[in-house]
């Protein structure tokens, strides 16, 4: 009894202190009441590195506000400051006209700010519903969760905004598109009025992107404010009202999106002119080097994910596989790289069957692969750049003798590679890859794979999460390889990329290549339909 | 006993070690200069078994004579020789090694340091160097007695024995006990079975308890243990089952005053104290093996056995006399046991 009394008193005291504190902090700022968020002079440092320097941001209520910037410009950092994950060293934040001190995400949530992170913050082995309610569970007095009630609430939101999810599905089993919707629901569930989306479209299919834009419009209609970070200029044009541009941690400009062209945006972002469409000669394909016949592969749940797939890649051409995520691309890659067993059919490289052998054998057969997950499959983050560059070739005579590594040769090779592929910082050969930025990590992988002098270069989502400058660079590399007479297989979820870069565009749907086209003989519309399971004549089967 | 013939190789003709000679001259007045050290085996000084008993003996010795005593613990077998050596450096007049496991290490140390005196518990050498003393116990004697007592006490005609790990020393307890039971059964004209099980551990309390519980529930009403820490579990099982356990080494009745029938004493402390005193008093102890039996009061059963019927106690005392007189020679291993039963 006494114990409860004491605890009551403590809680009361703590609460009143908190309220006093908040009142002090939130001195009223009268001007700009229609301003949902105003950040002023934000400076954020990590150690000696200044990630943000006096950045301003003003977001009007009920609008979609885009933030544009190169990789590492500081966009995510700025948003993390707003969400209370980081504390800025300098600067002030006002939310809905009130000066606030956002010490942690709880405060942000309390202020009606929700954030969908660049890297999804979902617990993989939880269900959708569990992820949504986490931290704000619907419970009875004893802390017992009432799932039924929670699901009711979720269903309501689903209906209201058209965010379709299956509350009982596990995150690890659903598509990224649905995961994204779960993230948005999570924010809305917490009563978010201001929604931050950090690169939400990087992982989505064209259809899903359209859907997302639709949802965003739904939300603003409902009075919500959206801040969206993206590298895709087209999306900014399609969705945003205002765009703020950040370059190297500094505020550059805020523009009305309808007043500028995509080129202008890109130029502002990188500080110089960029070409958005890749320049290349017409392909001159030669003989077939890589051939897949009637390939059948099962997924983890023992269902056929690749169903009698056929594919040919010739020397000197880039074959692009366009398709919506989950149509067998993942299994196809795993089969080619021998990470998974093939049920039937064959994969031939230079007329030699390679299926069901080993990753090592695949590499030996002159296939190089740029994997979509660079941190999981592509790199050993705790290895130095030098060590990563020889991850596949350490056994070659060039780098080792009688089982001993030749450090000097490796370093020389790495330095050359760093120079050739413009990896930064340029003296990073003995640095851990972990410390490199995402774009530079990707450059290390690309450099390594190309240095293997493969006959076939497979690139899976090679530009995922990269900025325009970096994307341009990667595409140039692919074309260069083609021009050297190599075969290139590009698998991407971004239709633009495939349309732009590939010489032959193959559409994958439901585990099969449904049709192939030469570049320029087909429009985006047709491909989009085929990807969604329609046919050439525009009918959905 | 296995050690009766050892002292033949002419100890008496050898000069006593230097330190001993001095001790002779100064006797008790100089006892504070008299230094005795011991090295435990890997059981450590708190093993509730002979190491502990040995240390108690030394402390007793120190209390009585004013001598200095100390111990070094071995945590690994490899510690034996370095610990023994350390004791030499500290200028001990006598260095005790506790346990047969140390036999080789001590033999070597004695060879290396002819000026130091050594003694070992539970080992008899075929040839004992002049500066080394073996001490063995006829543990089969008290085991025989408790087995005899158990047979006279059991109501279910079934008794048990829990061993720690199979070894020659534990064999003394097992076969002595079984022989005692058999001897009494013959007297009584009954058939009394002995359940024997080894825990393969001197430390697993739960296993000791589980084995004893199994024995009790299978009809035993008295279980004797020679299992060190595992035995604590055995006594606990007796307590829980309301049956009897028989303790070992020292009087273990304090662990369960109502459920310990008696204990088979093997008083390492007595032996240590006695031998140390002998040396202090200038007696030559090297080059021979002392066998401690009933006569020295180093083995036996406690005087007070509140749970034992007085008439049984008397009978056991009679048996003790017979053993002391050599009329009964309890067996100490399987072969002698079979021979005994013939």
């Amino acid at each position: 009894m006494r114990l409860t009394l004491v605890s009551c008193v403590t809680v009361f005291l703590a609460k009143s202190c908190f309220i006093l504190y908040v009142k002090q902090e939130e001195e009223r700022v009268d001007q700009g009441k229609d301003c949902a968020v105003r950040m002023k002079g934000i400076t954020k440092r990590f150690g000696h590195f200044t990630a943000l320097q006096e950045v301003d941001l003003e977001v009007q209520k009920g609008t979609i506000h885009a933030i544009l910037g190169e990789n590492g410009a500081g966009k995510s950092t700025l948003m993390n400051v707003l969400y209370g994950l980081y504390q800025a060293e300098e600067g002030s934040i006002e939310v809905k006209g009130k000066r606030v001190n956002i010490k942690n995400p709880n405060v942000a949530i309390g202020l009606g700010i929700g954030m969908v992170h660049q890297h999804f913050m979902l617990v993989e082995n939880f269900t959708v519903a569990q992820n949504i309610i986490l931290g704000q569970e619907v419970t009875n007095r004893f802390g017992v969760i009432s799932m039924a009630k929670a699901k009711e609430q979720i269903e309501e939101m689903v209906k209201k905004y058209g965010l379709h999810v299956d509350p009982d599905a596990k995150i690890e089993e659903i598509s990224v598109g649905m995961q994204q919707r779960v993230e948005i629901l999570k924010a809305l569930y917490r009563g978010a009025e201001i929604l931050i989306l950090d690169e939400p479209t990087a992982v989505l299919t064209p259809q899903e992107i359209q859907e997302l834009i639709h949802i965003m419009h739904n939300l603003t209609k409902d009075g919500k404010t959206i801040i969206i970070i993206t590298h895709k200029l087209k999306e900014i044009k399609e969705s945003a009202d205002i765009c703020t541009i950040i370059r190297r941690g500094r505020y550059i400009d805020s523009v009305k999106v309808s007043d500028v062209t995509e080129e202008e945006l890109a130029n502002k972002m990188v500080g110089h002119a960029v070409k958005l469409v890749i320049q290349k000669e017409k392909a001159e394909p030669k003989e077939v080097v890589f051939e897949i016949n009637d390939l059948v592969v099962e997924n983890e749940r023992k269902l056929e994910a690749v169903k009698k797939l056929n594919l040919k890649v010739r020397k000197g051409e880039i074959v692009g596989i366009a398709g919506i995520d989950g149509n067998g691309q993942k299994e196809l890659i795993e089969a080619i790289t021998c990470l998974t067993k093939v049920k039937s059919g064959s994969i031939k490289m230079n007329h030699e069957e390679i299926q069901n052998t080993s990753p090592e054998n695949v590499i030996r057969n002159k296939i190089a692969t740029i994997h979509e997950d660079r941190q999981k499959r592509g790199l050993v983050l705790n290895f130095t750049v030098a060590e990563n560059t020889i991850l596949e070739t350490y056994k070659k005579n060039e780098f080792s003798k009688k089982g001993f590594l030749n450090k000097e040769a490796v370093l020389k090779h790495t330095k050359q590679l760093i120079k050739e592929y413009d990896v930064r910082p340029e003296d990073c050969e003995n640095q851990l890859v972990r410390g490199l930025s995402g774009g530079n990590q990707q450059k290390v992988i690309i450099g390594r794979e190309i240095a293997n002098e493969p006959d076939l270069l497979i690139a899976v989502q090679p530009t995922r999460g990269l900025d325009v400058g970096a994307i341009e660079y990667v595409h140039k590399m692919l074309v260069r390889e083609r021009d050297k007479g190599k075969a290139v297989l590009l698998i991407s979820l971004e239709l633009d990329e495939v349309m732009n870069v590939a010489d032959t565009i193959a559409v994958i749907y439901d585990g099969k290549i449904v049709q192939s086209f030469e570049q320029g003989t087909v429009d985006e519309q047709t491909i989009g339909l085929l990807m969604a399971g329609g046919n050439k004549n525009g009918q959905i089967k | 006993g296995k050690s009766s013939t050892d002292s033949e190789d002419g100890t008496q003709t050898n000069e006593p070690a230097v330190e001993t000679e001095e001790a002779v001259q100064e006797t008790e007045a100089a006892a504070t200069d008299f230094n005795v050290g011991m090295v435990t085996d890997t059981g450590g000084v708190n093993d509730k078994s002979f190491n502990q008993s040995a240390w108690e003996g030394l402390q007793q010795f120190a209390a009585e004579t004013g001598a200095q005593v100390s111990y070094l613990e071995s945590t690994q077998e490899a510690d034996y020789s370095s610990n023994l050596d350390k004791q030499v450096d500290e200028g001990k007049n006598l260095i005790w090694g506790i346990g047969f496991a140390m036999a080789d290490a001590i033999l070597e140390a004695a060879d290396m340091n002819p000026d130091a005196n050594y003694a070992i518990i539970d080992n008899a050498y075929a040839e004992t160097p002049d500066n080394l003393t073996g001490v063995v116990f006829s543990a089969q004697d008290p085991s025989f007695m408790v087995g005899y007592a158990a047979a006279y006490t059991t109501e279910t005609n079934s008794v048990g024995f829990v061993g720690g790990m199979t070894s020659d020393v534990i064999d003394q307890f097992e076969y002595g006990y079984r022989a005692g039971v058999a001897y009494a059964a013959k007297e009584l004209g009954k058939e009394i079975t002995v359940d024997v099980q080894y825990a393969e551990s001197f430390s697993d309390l739960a296993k000791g308890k589980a084995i004893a519980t199994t024995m009790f529930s299978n009809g035993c009403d008295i279980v004797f243990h020679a299992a060190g820490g595992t035995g604590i579990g055995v006594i606990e099982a007796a307590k829980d089952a309301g049956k009897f356990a028989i303790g070992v080494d020292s009087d273990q009745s304090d662990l369960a005053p109502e459920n310990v029938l008696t204990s088979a004493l093997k008083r390492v402390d007595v032996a240590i104290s006695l031998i140390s005193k002998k040396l202090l008093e200038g007696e030559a102890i090297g080059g021979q093996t002392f066998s401690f039996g009933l006569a020295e009061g180093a083995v036996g059963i406690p005087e007070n056995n509140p749970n034992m019927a007085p008439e049984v106690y008397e009978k056991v005392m009679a048996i003790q006399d017979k053993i002391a007189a050599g009329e009964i020679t309890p067996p100490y291993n399987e072969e002698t046991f079979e021979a005994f039963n013939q």
Partner: protein
Amino acid sequence: MDRLNKILKKQITATFIAIFFGFLVATVILAVAGYNPFEAFAVLFKGIFSRPKYMANVIIKATPIILTGVSVAFAFKVGLFNIGAEGQFIIGTVAAAMAGILLDLPAVLQFPLLILIGMAAGALYGAIIGFLKAKYGIHEVITGIMLNWIAFYFCNYIVNTHTFHQDNSTGSKNIREAGFDIIYNWKKSAGGKSFLKENPTLMEIIGKTDLNIGIIFAIAAAIIITIVLNKTTKGFQLRAVGFNKDAAEFAGINIKKNMIHAMLIAGALSGLAGALMVTGISHKLSTLGTFENYGFNGLSISLIATNSPIGCIFAGLLFAGLLYGGGSIQSEIGAPSEIINIMIGTIVFFVALSRFIPVLVDKYGRRGGKHVK
């Protein structure tokens, strides 16, 4: 300032700070319990450094745990937690002793053969763990713990079999002298005896202790393992697997094979420690009452050394020094010997905390930097 920061951030500095704190905590505990801590430390250091042979004893004590430490450290590099080093050590002793008793070869063959057999047995025993992990995905901690106990009972079984048991003892027969350590055989030889008589210091170090060539094996093993890890293609593979299995697999490195190889090598190191124990010190098997902690101490050592094989040499010496010198604390000032365990535990604990030091340095260093400006 910057240089100081850099020094402070070094792992080795952190380890020394940890050792310092270990002593500090022991000081406090001793003082609280009513003993003079400085006297205790004096005894400790005297027990280690006052005579050459004490140092030799420390080295002897350090030898097996350096090896098990390197074994654990090596497995760690490949991402495996070799809690089974204890079992591999035991199997090493058992195999070497069995062979030492059964085989009857000239010393030039017998001794190296026993070492090899002990290593091979430990290696196979370790490989079981690697195999079960690679084939069935069974966690190495479970198999390690279970195999420790199985080795324990297996040793006791072998000791008590008719072939190997020595009558009137708890141990096995001695191995044949041909299998004894080289130094041992030399010091027992006529030449060795007379030589030692003329060199009292050597007599003390070699004659009065079990000093054997094991320490050379241990140091060589630490160096070889360091070279293997850092300079060879095999080490490259193993580390790649340790850091990122998925990337290694994708790069064509066979992770299952490497897992087994890693445990094979780790097991061989522990087995070697066991074989050296038999040839150099015990010359026989004894019934085990409890684990003798050679493997478990190896864990602590590897952790104090932050998994650096070379570091294991020093950590092993430190650990052995504390255990050996600490043994005298009880006999000299009466303080319970547990204090040494607490002290070692505290050192390990502060090693664990040492990750925090760079963070603190960063915080403090930055603030310092600001002031300068």
